[in-house]
């Protein structure tokens, strides 16, 4: 009985999955120039790979100075939100084949936050707005609980959508209102407020609504739906904001 021989090696080599793609990246280095510039990189990449893989190839093989954030690389940590072909997405969840690789793929930092270097922005204003809505459970009973805080499945489902947020800032930095005025709380902070306002176990809904009733709170939302379209977790952000608006009017939540 003869051992099977691998004779497909040649055929596989000729049918290489790799294609040549141009990455057009918006570079900014304050130590070199105050102006941002576009830089093109040509690379061989499998269309089934992700934009993040392309950025890695550039950083590891072509230009080690390219700066960007990424941690888990699997769409959970929310580090690598960037503007790819004009839209906010996670580089680790965007496949090359979904982007029309014939044309250069543009990669820019997210809008509305100060660019520190290349694709890295200062996230502090974003996280400050998040902290301002008190994104933690608050109860009137301050004693340490002796048993679990129970909740019905329906009560849990009420805010299920907004528990999915990974704080990547894709929504907030897609919002035209936020681009013009960074004082606006932004969709992400409102989503995280919604997560507690509509939680039956939480007792500080009134306080959070008061915070969002501010001049820079929910009323600045112009329902452009950019946030809903940008959210890599598929959260219906505009819907959540509308629910907070309605809760503010009716005081029912």
């Amino acid at each position, binding site marked *: 009985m003869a051992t099977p021989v691998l004779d497909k090696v040649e055929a596989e080599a000729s049918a290489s999955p790799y294609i040549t793609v141009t990455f057009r990246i*918006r570079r900014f280095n304050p130590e070199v120039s105050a102006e941002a510039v576009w830089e093109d990189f040509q690379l061989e990449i499998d269309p089934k790979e992700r934009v993040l893989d392309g950025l890695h190839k550039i950083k590891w093989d072509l230009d080690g100075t390219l700066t960007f954030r990424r941690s888990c690389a699997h769409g959970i940590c929310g580090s690598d939100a960037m503007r790819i072909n004009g839209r906010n997405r996670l580089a680790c969840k965007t496949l090359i084949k979904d982007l029309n690789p014939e044309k250069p793929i543009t990669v820019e930092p997210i809008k509305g936050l100060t660019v520190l270097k290349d694709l890295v922005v200062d996230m502090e204003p974003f996280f400050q707005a998040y902290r301002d809505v008190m994104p933690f459970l608050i109860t009137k009973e301050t004693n340490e609980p002796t048993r679990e805080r129970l909740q019905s499945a329906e009560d849990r489902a009420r805010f299920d959508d907004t528990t999915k947020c990974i704080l990547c800032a894709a929504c907030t930095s897609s919002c*035209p209102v936020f681009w013009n005025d960074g004082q606006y709380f932004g969709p992400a902070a409102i989503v995280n407020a919604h997560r507690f306002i509509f939680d039956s176990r939480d007792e500080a809904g009134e306080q959070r609504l008061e915070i969002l009733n501010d001049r820079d709170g929910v009323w600045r939302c112009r*329902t452009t*739906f*950019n946030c809903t*379209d940008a959210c890599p977790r598929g959260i*219906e952000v*505009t*819907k959540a904001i*509308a629910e907070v608006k309605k809760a503010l009017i009716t005081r029912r939540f």
Partner: protein
Amino acid sequence: MPAGTLYRGREGMWSWVAHRVTGVLIFFFLFVHVLDTALVRVSPEAYDKVVATYKTPIVALLEYGLVAAILFHALNGLRVIAVDFWSKGPRYQKQMLWTVVGVWVVLMAGAIYPVLGHAARVLFGS
């Protein structure tokens, strides 16, 4: 190409842009409209003279544009109200936008004769 690219928003963003633009245009119209109407208290003759200059084909075309702006702003305004107050509004915003555009096209077609009919008779004879 030093500038960043335009954000490629979808229907929601462009309907907001159109809502803004038509809103500003309507504001400018109202500004002029208040001025020319107030003129009647200054002098009715001057008012008649100013309004007579409006009866030209160019102003008729501007009026048609005004109808376009007001119709879009009004219909999209209803859509925005539905987005905020109807619980299923956010989910059906695109369908509502295309409904708005559809109704707008029909009404704009209907407005051609009433708004531009006079100008057409002036230009091409009756």
